[in-house]
């Protein structure tokens, strides 16, 4: 009995003691207050790193990974009309499925909010040697500028928020800022970021782990791109040379750093891990095969993939000059329409897979026969009537590392490049040509890019207009499938000329004697719509539904 009383009193004591603690106390480790988070420098910096995740960070990013902006343009078509591409192709940009309109609008503002919060809260964090406030501030400002530019190039002027709103203000109807105000905001942020950030990847402490964060040079490259956008016909209807001058100066500043140079081999540009050509990339570790854009978007079943939904079009293929530097439209170029892939710009062979080229150990077969007596057409094994094989006889090679094949465990690198030195050179050439005409500087920059590709120099004595045409062509070829063409077309105001044109493909007929004949065919089923009001995206419909009048839609989309 005594024992029992003893035990009972023990139980009571324990209960009493445990009751002294607040039993409603939360689990340790769950923080409920932003101020608390920012007391710890490590957590604070991680909160800031989250802003990066709102970046656009891959080429195939539409409809999961089954669509690219390339398919909005005269580079390629979407065989299976994936919603997020098809809505853009058919001009239904107000459709909720047009993710480059709706998704990006939301994603960028999410990034902006995180940057705004970080910029405000970061001052509260105790300083440690690792918690470098300059760097953190620079990163957030760079990213905010980047987000606002992604909005600016789509929508024009947008609502500028430089402080995170309280949730009670989330339904506040805010008017859009003007194009100029948004541009100024971007330039202010990016200038400050450049002054705060380490200049290059190598200047980051511990570059092996910290490279490819924002850098001063990345800020400069962004600034150059922003100023190019501002100087381009879309935003410079008057043709103000001073705008081009500013754009040229921004690119020149990067060239003058002397830190960057072209990668020796064009074929390695996206696939090499480190290069002096990269100004900023999103590092992509080795990419797997199954369940990625490789097997599910680019590679046909005949090559071990699941489906191929992107076909490069003839419109793009025709842009590759002959190896001798002459466009194929030049009668003296030596272009043979019945042997169209001979002696072309070496970049063609890097970017495009065509009939009878050797790839992964065998010849690509995108030929077909003339119908036989029974009307039956025989197809090469990489061609056919199925939806997910090429519609143009071409496959995309640029973003398909040769090591990536079915059954192979090899992981091939393919980085997402934000800015590379070739863009700086071509930006500089384009801006200088517009500002002052085709001077020596222009030739030097374009020829550097051509030389690396294995192409001869541009002919001397080009007019300003000729030079512009050559530079535009150079950009189309050099940055093929790099999420560049669409934005170039928009800023040049060339949608009607390039996008609304009939898309074409090559019909390769295998003759009975084994030779091939080539006919360019139009693809009316893949005709794209581009109207004059489409140089600016519409503000997403869901967003316009919320306004009581303060938020205004872009012209033509009302």
């Amino acid at each position, binding site marked *: 009995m005594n024992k029992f009383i003893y035990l009972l009193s023990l139980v009571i004591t324990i209960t009493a003691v445990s009751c002294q603690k607040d039993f409603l106390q*939360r689990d340790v480790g*769950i923080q*409920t*207050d*932003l101020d*608390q988070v920012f007391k710890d420098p490590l*957590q*604070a910096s*991680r*909160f800031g*790193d*989250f802003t*990066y*995740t709102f970046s656009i960070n891959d080429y195939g990013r539409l409809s999961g990974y089954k669509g690219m902006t390339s398919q909005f343009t005269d580079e390629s078509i979407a065989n299976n009309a994936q919603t997020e591409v*098809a809505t853009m192709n*058919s001009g*239904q940009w107000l*459709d*909720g499925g047009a993710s480059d309109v709706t998704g990006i*609008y*939301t994603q960028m*503002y*999410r*990034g*902006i*909010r*995180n940057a705004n919060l970080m910029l405000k809260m970061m001052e509260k964090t105790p300083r440690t040697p690792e918690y470098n406030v300059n760097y953190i501030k620079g990163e957030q400002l760079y990213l905010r500028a980047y987000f606002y530019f992604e909005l600016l190039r789509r929508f024009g002027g947008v609502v500028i*928020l430089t402080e*995170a*709103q309280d*949730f009670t*203000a*989330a*339904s*506040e*109807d*805010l008017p859009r800022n003007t194009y100029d105000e948004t541009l100024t905001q971007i330039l202010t942020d990016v200038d400050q970021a450049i002054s705060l950030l380490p200049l290059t990847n190598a200047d980051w402490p511990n*570059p*092996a*782990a*910290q*490279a*490819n*964060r924002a850098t001063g040079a990345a800020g400069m490259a962004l600034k150059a791109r922003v100023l190019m956008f501002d100087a381009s016909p879309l935003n410079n209807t008057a043709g103000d040379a001073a705008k081009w001058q500013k754009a040229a100066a921004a690119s020149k500043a990067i060239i003058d750093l002397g830190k960057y140079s072209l990668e020796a081999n064009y074929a390695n540009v996206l696939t090499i*891990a*480190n290069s002096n050509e990269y100004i900023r*990339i999103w*590092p*992509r*570790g080795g990419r797997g095969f199954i369940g990625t854009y490789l097997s599910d978007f680019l590679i046909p079943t005949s090559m071990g993939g699941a489906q191929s939904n992107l076909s490069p079009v003839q419109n793009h293929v025709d842009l590759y000059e002959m190896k001798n530097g002459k466009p194929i439209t030049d009668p003296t170029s030596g272009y043979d329409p019945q042997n169209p892939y001979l002696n072309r710009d070496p970049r063609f062979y890097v970017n495009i897979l065509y009939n009878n080229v050797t790839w992964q150990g065998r010849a690509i077969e995108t030929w077909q026969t003339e119908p036989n007596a029974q009307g039956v057409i025989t197809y090469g094994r990489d061609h056919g009537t199925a939806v997910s094989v090429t519609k143009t006889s071409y496959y995309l090679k640029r973003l398909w590392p040769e090591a990536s094949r079915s059954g192979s465990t090899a992981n091939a*690198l393919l980085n997402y490049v934000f800015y590379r030195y070739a863009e700086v050179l071509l930006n500089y050439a384009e801006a200088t040509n517009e500002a002052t005409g085709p001077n020596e500087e222009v030739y030097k920059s374009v020829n550097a890019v051509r030389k690396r590709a294995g192409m001869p120099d541009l002919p001397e004595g080009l007019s300003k207009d000729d030079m512009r045409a050559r530079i535009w062509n150079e950009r189309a070829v050099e940055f093929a499938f790099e999420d560049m063409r669409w934005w170039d077309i928009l800023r040049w105001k060339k949608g009607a000329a390039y996008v609304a044109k009939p898309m074409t493909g090559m019909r390769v007929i295998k003759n009975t004697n084994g030779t091939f004949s080539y006919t360019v065919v139009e693809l009316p089923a893949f005709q794209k719509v581009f109207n004059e009001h489409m140089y600016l995206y519409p503000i*997403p*419909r*869901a*967003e316009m*539904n*919320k*306004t*009581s009048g303060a*938020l205004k839609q872009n012209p033509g989309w009302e």
Partner: protein
Amino acid sequence: MKQYEWINMLKVRGSVGRVGLPSPGTGRFYYQNKFGAGSNVVFGNPNSNFSAPTYIQTQYGNPYVTFEESLKKNIGLDVLLFHDKLSITADIFNDTRSNILTTRSASSFATYGATVPSTNYGMNYNQGYELSVMYRDQVKDFTYSVTGNLSFARNERRILDEAPGLASNLKATGTRLGTYFGYHVLGFYADQNDIDKSPVNKVTSFTSIPGDFKYQDINGDGIINNQDVMPIGHPNIPEYNASLNLQAGYKGFQLSVLFNGVTNVSSNVIFQSATLGQYYGPMLDRWTPDNPNPSRPASRPGLVANPNESLNDFMLQDASYIKLRNVQLSYSLPRQVLNRLRLNGLTILVSGQNLITWTKFYGLDPENTMTGNAYAPATTTIPTTKVLNFGLNLSL
């Protein structure tokens, strides 16, 4: 009062109540913000990159969060008549549910840049009646009862999170829970000329063919797309529920029959089998130039997203039904026989469930309303099963 003796009971009930309800799925700490690990971000050398952890807000708490509220009112009548043989129960009710925890995402601007916490905002109103009548009697060894139930409930979503500028045909505010939004069918495209002069059908990426549904371009923008849907048909929840239960007993025999029926409910109809690539029988009455007033649109190659299969008021069907829900017949052996067998009880029974369905709905089962317009999930809905039981109950 003698003349009222046939009334054994007459009771009038009434109640008004206001109750607080916890919102489903919010948990105890919804008023708090929470922070935790976010998805990693990659820096460094692509070959040996460094996956940097991030720290994010994982819950956007609402410090003002409170209970949802329900104001219920009810008037009822209980009557027993003719020596308790007839009993009637009737109720009229309404229920105003307010402060429903709602994410205000449809009215919060994307520029805010984060998830908006749910706030006590929404309101639903529900009203209706319930009636139950039972008559039971006994004639010598024969006992029987008849029970009828009828209920009606209609709700209205009074306050919802919707963008103020949402087109009126798209607004769910004021509609009932489970309302279908679909296209209004004006007819069939007679020929290519008819297609050319009609608004462009962009419901799917397929171009129109003669015999396709001609949908109404509600907003008049020349394009028929998801902005041109409107509330159609009845909701997917039946408004009327009725049942009839018959019971009879004679000596050891017991028979029970239950009918159950609903009406004011709609369900979508599917055209084709998801796996076989074949159309169902009614498609035989499809549109052809020779059959311009059919019950189905023109046929298209199977298993593709077909603009005619998008939810529309031509194909949305009345899913009213009456089912013979349950029948049970049993026989218990009389006492004398049991005693001889030295048993306490022996009952033999036969029962069946869902034996007969009377409905105009074409499909697997009107009871499982098909709410989507995608045929694949709809065809995989499992219908209620027909069950037959034979039983022997032996007590020792």
